[in-house]
């Protein structure tokens, strides 16, 4: 009897302590969102949510809309994805199926290591290598523009996407690939008709997560995109993303509406990334259901 008490007593204590930790951690998730909403409130109350999201940024004329920043973030993310997806797919295909063993292993290890390169280093190289190059090659403006940011961001999100794609492709049950081989399919056919369709969900999840990462990136756009708060109309124009806006306006007067606008950006960023996380979670749990 004494043993049993000790066992369930220690389990109860453990549940309490560990449970408290878990609740604290989970509460942080909600607390962050709460802070964003509460501190953006003056702006939302003043200008109504819809107007804040669709107006342009002209604080001197009393307009605190973040539409240009939302558009810039989307343009940058989609642009980077447009470049990075095909390249990441190709690279992943090379590593898993279409490349020779030794180079494939090298590329795999290389990409794994690449994920350790700090964002700020990408930004730094962007400033001193990509920006001058864009300026000279395209003869348009200072070189700090949407295009420069897209180029560097695409390179930055590629390694994680490649690793994700590789994982998705290697999770395709070997039996299917073997069956295809037995029917005479070569690597290309196997890749196109078996691996890609079966890995569909994993690939989509990888793209989603890369989008989230691109949408939430600060340093690359802050250092390379120019930071003019205007609606992006041209690859060579300077733009300002939601994330850069936060970093730039943080020094403004606390009481001003200008300051509150960064929390509106925070709300948008949080919501978009939370949505991405939810969809990805949903996709992943559906995969687990189908492959017990």
């Amino acid at each position: 009897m004494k043993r049993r008490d000790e066992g369930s007593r220690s389990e109860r204590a453990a549940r309490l302590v560990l449970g408290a930790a878990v609740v604290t951690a989970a509460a942080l998730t909600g607390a962050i969102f709460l802070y964003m909403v509460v501190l953006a409130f003056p702006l939302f109350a003043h200008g109504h949510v819809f107007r804040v999201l669709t107006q342009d940024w002209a604080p001197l004329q009393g307009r605190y809309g973040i539409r240009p920043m939302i558009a810039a973030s989307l343009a940058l993310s989609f642009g980077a994805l447009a470049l990075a997806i095909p390249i990441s797919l190709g690279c992943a295909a090379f590593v898993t199926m279409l490349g020779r063993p030794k180079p494939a292993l090298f590329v795999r290890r290389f990409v794994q290591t690449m994920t350790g390169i700090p964002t700020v280093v990408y930004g730094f190289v962007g400033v001193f290598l990509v920006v001058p190059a864009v300026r000279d090659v395209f003869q348009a403006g200072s070189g700090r523009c949407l295009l420069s940011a897209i180029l560097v961001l695409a390179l930055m999100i590629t390694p994680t996407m490649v690793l994700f794609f590789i994982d998705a492709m290697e999770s395709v049950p070997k039996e299917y690939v073997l069956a295809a081989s037995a029917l005479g399919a070569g690597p290309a056919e196997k890749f196109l008709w078996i691996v890609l369709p079966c890995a569909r969900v994993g690939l989509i999840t990888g793209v989603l997560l890369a989008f989230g990462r691109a949408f939430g990136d600060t340093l690359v756009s802050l250092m390379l995109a120019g930071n003019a708060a205007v609606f992006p109309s041209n690859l060579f124009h300077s733009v300002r993303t939601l994330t850069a806006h936060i970093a730039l306006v943080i020094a403004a007067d606390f009481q001003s509406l200008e300051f509150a606008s960064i929390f509106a950006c925070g709300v948008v960023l949080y919501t978009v990334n939370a949505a991405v996380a939810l969809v990805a979670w949903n996709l992943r749990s559906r995969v687990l259901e189908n492959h017990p």
Partner: protein
Amino acid sequence: MKGKPAMGVKIRLQKVSFRYGTRFVFQEVSVEFHEHELAVIVGPSGQGKSTLLMCLNRLWEEIPGARMEGEVWITLDGRPRCVSDPSFPATTLRRRVAMVFQTPNPLPMTIFNNVAFPHKLMGVRDRKTLEETVRKALAKAYLWDEVKDRLHEDARHLSGGQQQRLCIARALSLDPEVVLLDEPTSSLDEKAARVIENLLLDLKRRLTVIVVSHSTDQVRRLADRVFRLQEGRLFLDRPLADYLSL
């Protein structure tokens, strides 16, 4: 077969059903196992033999989604106890009803610590008591002579058969009344398997032994009674004589 003393009932399952989620593994199984018998359970793979064993030491509770209905009664220290009742402490039950798994699972520790582990769990600290307990357990499992000079080596360095005997020693060190063995020799070569079979025949003199097995030969060598678990039902198999004539 020989003249045995009057055999009491050691274990009684009463209308025991088991399911994972909505999928039933077996339904309304009622059976009695006798004291000092070596019962063997046979049947097609994947139909719940391991699960049935886990009902006897309530290890199924650690598996998410598992549900058991019905009652399990085991005579411990001379008194029949309803061990499936949540008020009966599972930790106590598992010390009286020991289990040996199909693949040897030595803990990542020395040989000595492996066998001493269950006692350390109970708070036994005295070095000399532990040494004595370990020696007795290893001797009961026919392993003492082979490892007495290397008690402080990592247990994973032993051969498969030695590891399995180590696991048996570990289980025996608590002086259980029942031992459950889930295909204990299926991962071993024939010579190692024979050693363990002799060990089991020896053990049933002091304990009740229940073995899950896939090998007809093994059944023939070991069993007092044979049970078959098939399609969710447990029943006494063909008379032992049939096995002898195979």
